[in-house]
């Protein structure tokens, strides 16, 4: 009986610790994705302003230099543009965001920034595109700072909370 109790306690503590780490990891992934988006937009900006590459090609090219959820997002977006699904950039971008939201770790705030950026992407001359890129980069920079603060605040908390929570439950059940 005692051995079963011990095993159960270990399982509880183990899984709650994993949960805690996963919750903490979201903060790290969020920062990583924001930085990746900044890099992707910088690359997209130079494709647009320096080389006048058509948007579908430019997006596809960028999708090969990013990873994870951001890669899925850019790949999906490039596919929609190339197959001329969706009648406008705005629509295609929104659909892609919707489709890839689950594999991304950024928050609703960042999604809102991305949605509004999709409303102007590709829609003006190079000068105006450059201005919009500057705006979105600034917004993402702010989000990066916010995400870093949140990470340093909550990362350790979630990790300890997972372990300690598991311990507490195990003690209660013992």
């Amino acid at each position, binding site marked *: 009986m005692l051995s079963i109790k011990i095993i159960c306690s270990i399982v509880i503590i183990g899984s709650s610790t994993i949960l805690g780490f996963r919750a903490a990891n979201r903060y790290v992934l969020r920062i990583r994705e924001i930085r990746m988006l900044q890099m992707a937009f910088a690359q997209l900006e130079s494709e647009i*302003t320096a080389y006048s590459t058509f*948007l579908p090609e430019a997006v596809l090219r960028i999708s090969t230099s990013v990873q994870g959820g951001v890669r899925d997002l850019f790949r999906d977006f490039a596919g929609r543009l190339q197959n001329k699904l969706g009648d*406008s950039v705005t629509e295609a971008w929104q659909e892609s965001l919707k489709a890839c939201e689950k594999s991304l770790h950024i928050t609703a705030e960042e999604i809102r920034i991305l949605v509004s950026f999709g409303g102007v992407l590709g*829609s003006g*001359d190079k000068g105006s595109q450059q201005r919009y890129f500057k705006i979105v980069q600034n917004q993402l920079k702010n989000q990066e700072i916010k995400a870093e603060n949140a990470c340093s605040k909550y990362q350790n908390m979630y990790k300890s909370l997972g372990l300690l929570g598991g311990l507490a439950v195990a003690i209660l059940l013992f």
Partner: protein
Amino acid sequence: MESLEYDAAWKRVILEALPENLQKIVAAIPVGMAAGMEEIRIREGRPLMIYSSGRNYYLRHDGTTSHYPKEAYWITHRDTERILQRISNYSIYAVEEELRNGYITLEGGHRVGVAGKAVLENGRIKTLKHISSFNIRISREIVGSAGKIMRYITSNTGVYHTLILSSPQMGKTTLVRDIARQLSDGFPGFPGIKVGIVDERSEIAGCYRGVPQNRVGLQTDVMDACPKAIGIMMMIRSMSPAVIITDEVGKAEDVDAIEEALNAGVKIITTAHSGNIDDARRRPILSRLLEKKIFQRIIVLGNSLGVGTVERIYDGYTLKNLLDKPVR
């Protein structure tokens, strides 16, 4: 069979340029009507129209034609916005230059003319905004259309300097394109020669990303979207053509460039907007060219036997008509 394939090709490109609701309408246009279709006219707040076999028609929601605007599909702001996105491949910034010139060339050489509000900067057009009118012109190259006139513009020793005069939509560009192809590929009794096309308005070769979409010949180089005067000089310097072909001379600097080509021993074949020789004489730039007797052959197009009829071919020096009767 070939024409069926060609039909499918233009349909795909044109349909891709349209938003889904208009795609359905245009795809449903009856086959006979679609076969003769030259233009699709899209104007915001006004009915959807096509120009087919020389007549205008309104298009209903189901793709059938009508003579009454009330029955037609009326274009919305949403439609025009979407067309612009699609024809620019979702990249307005990449077609700034084309917009400034008033048209965008699609794959296959089809052209979409645009009209809207011009934005000026220092007296020059910076770009167009509020684009509300589109004219989708279906380019139909007629391979072999120059067959009957080739012997008039070539001799044993080479090609004559040739000017083609015609009113708009009489098949000037179609003819000059086929002349380029025949000179370049050669035909019985004439070995092919090097041809340079200076295609200021992307109409002759219909280049899409620099590659000619129309059959302009195996030995033909194209300087796309390049001002004629500069393009002619660039061609002479770098591509050693035997003949340079351009469209629509009209500016004083074009005449200078043509003279430069003559000095370099390069033959020139070009076109101008003008119904006949007398008309051309009244226009300052053309009259200068005619007075100097630069052109050895002057071809006048009309429609006495249908669009693209060659009405007269003059000897440029004697102004004698070399044709017994119009040919098409």
